[in-house]
């Protein structure tokens, strides 16, 4: 499941440049990840982890380069690209329930002008169940703990039946129980054949869970299987010498 | 690049200067008396009296509303260049006051000596108008020919004082016009007399025809817009009462002046099934060629419309 086959299978980035305004820009980023890969995006603050994630998500326009999945532009398969946001980026006051949010994952497949049907509701309930939120779909999204709130958005991603899953700092402020559930979710995405990319500061998680790692510092310092790439030397180059490695 | 900008700016300034200096251009040298009239009826009467001896400018032209007129800088220039300024007064041309600081000796209020009319206070929800309160007096005095004759005489006197060389002509013109007004008076009487007595109750949009209706025996049983102002709106109860009045008194038509869009009056007319006549001349006169650009023409035009609607 972790082999890098040719163009035809998996996510391909080539010469990707993207940025916010005129000040910051990612230099040309190129790498490949296969279905089932869990890719960690690491780097110091301001390195561009979030920027890259958003570029892959299609939220930021590409200044140059391309992002393809299985030979076709990823943007054409946007329906199956799932973005799990950081908690602080969510509007918790919006009058929606957990089920409403998970159902949003089904919107594209429902299509324009149609309402969610029984099948969609079933899929959404199923996703909530898998995230341990069974029976709580009717609650307002603010009526959950922090860990549970993340699981709502994971359930939404599940409901999308994604081929690419993007996670923005998923391990921040998360307790042991929720961490475990998050691991299960990531493994399930990978097992279903999706490419999982997560931007994170948690190097421990990267070393234990990621199959590939992309080291960013406004450019791609290194990319490759974790085993080979996650070395002291690479880390020092990525973080500019501010790393203490404990074994 | 900056040189281009500078030369463009310079050209712009020169152009502005040229425009500013040109002004009205037609200078003093033709010897005619410069007369400025505030509102259209005063201007029309001044034209009758002054004839070719005067150069007349009317501030609020035919069709415009004097109640909400704002004086422009062109107007101010005309006022300071004028030899005589003729005003209606009685609250109709309040806009003049702010422009008159130094020129007050030139101003003549042509309505001195007319017979005034005080409208009945119909109810206590009478709105007070905005900034141009007439007090209690109806300013549309020229709609009574006797008043118009007084105005014409006052104008002749004012013009004669400013321009004694032509005093005789002014008086002659004034007399001729007074005779014309008498003819019109007789014609209007005949027109109104042709209306059956039971059809002489009317509703008006705005109290601008009081002198006319008083003189010729038409009874105004209701007014859509409360008070003498033209900007207030009637309340729901006022509309309801007006509809009751129309039904009870057998009113045949609602009369509105052409200068105001009488939306509420139209709805009332539709709801009660009566006609609406929306092109009378109340605060002002008609445009050139309408037949109502003179006071005598306006009175006849209005009279014909009343007669036709109420027959």
């Amino acid at each position, binding site marked *: 499941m972790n082999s890098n086959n040719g163009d035809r299978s998996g996510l391909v980035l080539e010469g990707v440049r993207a940025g916010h305004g005129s000040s910051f820009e990612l230099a040309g980023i190129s790498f490949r990840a296969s279905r089932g890969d869990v890719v960690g995006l690491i780097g110091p603050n301001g390195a561009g982890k979030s920027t890259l994630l958003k570029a892959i998500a299609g939220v930021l326009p590409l200044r140059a380069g391309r992002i393809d999945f299985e030979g076709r532009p990823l943007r054409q398969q946007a329906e199956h690209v799932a973005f799990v946001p950081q908690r602080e980026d969510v509007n918790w006051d919006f009058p929606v329930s957990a089920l409403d*949010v998970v159902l949003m994952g089904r919107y594209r497949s429902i299509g*324009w002008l149609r309402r969610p049907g029984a099948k969609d509701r079933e899929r959404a309930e199923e996703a909530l169940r898998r995230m341990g939120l069974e029976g709580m779909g009717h609650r307002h999204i603010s009526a959950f703990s922090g860990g549970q709130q993340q699981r709502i958005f994971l359930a939404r991603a599940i409901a999308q039946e994604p081929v690419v899953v993007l996670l923005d700092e998923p391990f921040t402020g998360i307790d042991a129980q929720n961490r475990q559930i998050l691991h299960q979710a990531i493994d399930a995405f990978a097992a279903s054949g999706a490419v999982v990319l997560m931007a994170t500061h948690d190097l421990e998680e990267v070393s234990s869970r990621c199959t590939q790692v992309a080291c960013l510092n406004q450019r791609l310092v290194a990319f490759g299987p974790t085993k080979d790439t996650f070395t002291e030397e690479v880390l020092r180059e990525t973080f500019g010498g501010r790393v203490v490695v404990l074994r | 690049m900056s040189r281009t900008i500078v030369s463009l700016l310079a050209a712009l300034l020169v152009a502005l200067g040229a425009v500013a200096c040109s002004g009205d251009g037609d200078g003093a040298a033709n010897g005619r008396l410069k007369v400025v009239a505030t509102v259209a009826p005063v201007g029309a009467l001044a034209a009758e009296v002054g004839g070719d001896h005067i150069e007349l400018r009317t501030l609020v032209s035919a069709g415009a509303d004097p109640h909400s007129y704002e004086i422009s800088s062109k107007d101010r220039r005309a006022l300071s260049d004028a030899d005589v300024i003729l005003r209606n007064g009685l609250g109709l041309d309040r806009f003049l006051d702010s422009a008159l600081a130094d020129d007050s000796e030139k101003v003549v209020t042509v309505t001195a000596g007319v017979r005034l009319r005080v409208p009945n206070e119909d109810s206590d929800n009478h709105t007070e108008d905005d900034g141009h309160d007439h007090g209690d007096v109806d300013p549309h005095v020229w709609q009574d020919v006797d008043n118009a004759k007084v105005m014409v005489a006052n104008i002749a006197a004012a013009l004669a004082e400013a321009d004694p060389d032509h005093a005789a002509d002014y008086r002659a013109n004034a007399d001729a016009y007074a005779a014309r007004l008498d003819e019109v008076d007789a014609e209007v009487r005949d027109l109104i007399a042709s209306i059956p007595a039971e059809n002489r109750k009317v509703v008006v949009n705005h109290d601008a025809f009081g002198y006319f209706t008083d003189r010729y025996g038409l009874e105004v049983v209701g007014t859509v817009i409360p008070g003498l102002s033209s*900007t207030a709106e009637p309340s*729901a109860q006022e*509309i309801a009462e007006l509809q009751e009045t129309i039904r009870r008194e057998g009113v045949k038509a609602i009369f509105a002046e052409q200068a105001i869009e009488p939306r509420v009056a139209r709805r009332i007319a539709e709801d009660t099934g009566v006609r609406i006549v929306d092109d009378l001349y109340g605060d002002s006169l008609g445009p050139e060629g309408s037949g109502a650009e003179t006071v005598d023409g306006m009175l006849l035009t209005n009279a014909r419309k009343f007669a036709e609607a109420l027959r």
Partner: protein
Amino acid sequence: MIGEYLLDPFDYPFMQRALAEVIIVGVVCGLVGCFVVLRGMAFIGDALSHTVFPGVVLSYIAGRSILIGAFVFGVLTAVGVALVSRTRRVSEDSAIGVIFAAFFALGVVLISRHAGFQRDLDSLLFGNVLAVSRTDVVVTAVIGAGIVAILFALLKELTLVAFDPTMARTAGYPVFALDMLLLVLIAATIVASLQAVGNILILALLVTPPAAARLLTDHLGRMMAASAALAVASGVVGLLVSYHADTAAGGTIVLTATTMFAACLVFAPNHGLVATRLQSRHGRHHAHHYHPIEEDADIN
């Protein structure tokens, strides 16, 4: 006696038309206003209600229905704001402010050039629901139906863009077009409501009932229904009160809406001041506090 108070005014066709108008306007404003409030668009709503003004004046001068001119300028504003705020250096609220002032000033200048206007200005600015004709009501109904139909057809997309524009973009939705569509719907709502309440007060109907409804429920569907109900109630009660008290209908309707908002603010079951005071006093945990997964509390 109460019956007379409630029903007598509506013996008159002009009051029946006014009633129909406020009901239609109430429904549309109540529904569309939910998105204005949830997306924090009160300022742009206010701007739109003013930028349609030159359109109204131009239509008037041309002798055509004011709806056309108003709508054209509403769309121009929507496009203008969307485009100008794409420039990095100009924030969206600056863009709105600039266009708002410019268009309104254009209207003022146009009016100053056409001396005969002043008197009609009042009813343009404040509306006169007592002067609507049957055609006016039909037109309002048709436009209102169109707005509501589009809103419901695209409800899930508009909701997604309002709640999570990042996901909307990620999932491939044309977010810019949807934002423009919402602005156009708001502009159309304002235009359709101009005759009832006028430029100056229309914002109140777009903001107050939804804000009150938000206090009553955490569920979007129920919020929209409550908002429409409150807006209609404000219109009907306001109209009735203005009849008996001899006050301006538009202003009375807005004050009624505000009173309802104040009542919700104080007495709403979960979010009202009384409720929150009681909860903290009795130590009862509110639905919005954290409940760990083990708790079996029945929250709504």
